[in-house]
């Protein structure tokens, strides 16, 4: 354990170029996936929260269930899509960071959508009467609520990021863990573990946890300060 910590520290202090490359790629892929999932997921959550349509309850249940999609299954499905033998093979996306972003976006979209749906539906209960009284149509109300619940939505987005940054199954299959191209923190940890270099694997693990923790702390502080100001 102490060897792991000292390995981690050593890598950080040296600003090991390989480590920097791997961390940058990890953050790049996961943050891109979060961006895609947020752009698609927030409107989706708002629409389901505020809308009334047949089958709405089924959609909500399914969305909640999809939060638990196993990453390795998503990876496999995306692989089959992007493989040369598959329907989107001609895009040549397999074994590139792009494929990893696609797979992670699919993985975390249900999380962002389901959690934002819950937050907005709770707010809708509070605001519905007043907004309808003012004459707001459903679409405009949904957009208003998206902005008004922004602090709760930030939590949903962070949950998505946490899932993306932590998973290894999807990025391993669609990325191929190629050195210098698609190797990220989680796949590195898997590789070093399989090579038997446990202190290095653990050290990388500490670094990954620290980064995710730092991001969460920053987001939490922002949220606290803003909530104190806006109520």
């Amino acid at each position, binding site marked *: 354990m102490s060897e792991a910590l000292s390995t981690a520290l050593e890598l950080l202090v040296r600003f090991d170029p390989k480590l920097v490359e791997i961390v940058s790629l990890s953050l*790049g*892929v996961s943050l*891109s996936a979060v961006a*895609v999932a947020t752009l698609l997921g927030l409107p989706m959550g708002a629409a389901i929260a505020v809308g009334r349509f047949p089958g709405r309850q089924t959609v909500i249940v399914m969305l909640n269930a999809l939060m638990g999609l196993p990453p390795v299954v998503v990876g496999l499905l995306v692989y089959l899509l992007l*493989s*040369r*033998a*598959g329907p*989107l*093979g*001609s*895009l*040549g*996306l*397999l*074994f*590139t*960071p*792009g*494929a*990893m*972003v*696609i797979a992670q*976006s699919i993985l975390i979209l249900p999380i962002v959508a389901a959690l934002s749906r819950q937050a907005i539906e709770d707010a809708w209960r509070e605001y519905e009467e007043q907004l309808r009284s003012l004459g707001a149509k459903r679409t405009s109300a949904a957009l208003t609520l998206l902005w008004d619940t922004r602090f709760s939505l930030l939590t949903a987005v962070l949950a998505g990021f946490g899932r993306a940054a932590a998973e290894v199954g999807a990025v391993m299959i669609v990325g*191929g*863990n*190629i*050195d210098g*191209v698609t190797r990220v923190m989680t796949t590195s940890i898997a*590789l070093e*573990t*399989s*090579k*038997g*270099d*446990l202190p290095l694997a653990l050290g990388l693990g500490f670094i990954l946890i620290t980064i995710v923790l730092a991001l969460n702390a920053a987001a939490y502080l922002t949220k606290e300060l803003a909530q104190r100001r806006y109520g």
Partner: protein
Amino acid sequence: MDMIRRLLLSVALLAALPALAQEKFIVVASTTSTEQSGLFGYLLPVFQKKTGIQVRVVALGTGQALDLARRGDADVVFVHARSAEEKFLAEGHGVQRFDVMYNDFVLIGPKSDPAKVSGGKDILEGLRKIKAASAPFVSRGDKSGTHIAELDLWKLAGIDIATEKGPWYRDTGQGMGPALNTAAAMNAYILSDRGTWISFKNRGELVIAVEGDKRLFNQYGVMLVNPAKHPNVKKDLGQAFVDWVISPEGQKTIAEYKIGGEQLFFPNAK
């Protein structure tokens, strides 16, 4: 569908920008043993410096690597299971197979040596003793070159392992590294390629029990994936890699790779 394609393409372009900066590259499907031994880390930069071609290695088990190539997702295969490679060729997925290098397998076992095989020179005898003693044995069970070699050895030893195995035989379905981790944790015997063993750091109580038997010889082969069957294959770049790896320069570079002064792979291209 068109909208989806465009959305996917823009997302992919954005995320793949750094990768796109590298214009010339090929995808080589290889095995975890070659990757984890560190050979590629040593070999590929030399090739890239000479030709400007980046080699992207996707490391899987031999069976998986060949399946990947069958779907057209690789340009070159670099694996070590002769029978599987010949089948691949016969199916028309490969252009031509070349010997590249060999290393050997070693039987790893616990220092306590419950089956009393240590120091032996006969692998078949060693396997028979392990079965007789019901000593714990870890198998990779993942259609890899090493797994196929292990099954062949049991057969040669006169044991039908599929029917004669007992709870002492642990079929893990893992790569070489994870399987060694498991063997170290269980204090079990395991067949490993020498390259992975030399660079493996989590040995626990394990040591080499049997080595040097000619039947432990492990041949690696390289093939260009057939562009006639898979038009997307980068045949010129892929061929350049194949040619270089069996060229005197490539062969010399393979021989130069050492860990702790010990050579891991022995070039034998004809």
